């Protein structure tokens, strides 16, 4: 069971990693924000799985914080960070 759960966690993490491609690609802020959302949901799943696999009940609390945080971050980003559609700051080189 533990092996299976750890494998699942790894799989889910890989899933998140794949999802990050969208953050990089954009193009709109909302697309990038999806990452936070994805991370919130999948991260909670991973933590719950790990809590079971590593027999570390404290991780369930962490999962709760993750869930909360993802919300807060998303809301804050939407409310405050929404300035332009594709902000690109040119670098001085």
């Amino acid at each position, binding site marked *: 069971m533990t092996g299976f759960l750890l494998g699942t966690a790894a799989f889910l993490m890989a899933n998140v990693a794949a999802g990050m491609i969208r953050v990089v690609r954009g193009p709109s802020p909302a697309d990038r924000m999806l990452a936070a*959302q994805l991370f919130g949901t999948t991260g909670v799943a991973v933590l719950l799985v790990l809590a079971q696999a590593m027999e570390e009940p404290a991780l369930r609390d962490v999962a709760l914080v993750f869930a909360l945080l993802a919300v807060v971050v998303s809301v804050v980003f939407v409310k405050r960070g929404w300035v332009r559609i594709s902000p690109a700051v040119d670098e001085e080189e």
Partner: protein
Amino acid sequence: MDLTLDLLTYGLVVMGAFFFVAGTAGVLRFPDVYCRLHAVTKADNLGLGFVALGLALQAPDWAARVQILLTWLLVLAAAATVCHLLGRSSLHGGVPAVGGKEVRS
């Protein structure tokens, strides 16, 4: 009994993982932000639900089970809110939808 539970957990977790994959695939492949929002909120939360359920079966005590389910519910509620916010902001911000009409700003 244990074996049944374990099998059930395997099943549910795999099912959840599948939905996560589906969600990610959607995020990556769907044509515009509005579609992607669907993918990430619906599929992923469903996936999380299955995983949570599967894990709840294995949880050591009732408190843990309640916590797991509460977490899920919280994520669910949050997803709904955030998704709505994101969608609305995108719309107001003028992000075009594929096949949709011209969006006013």
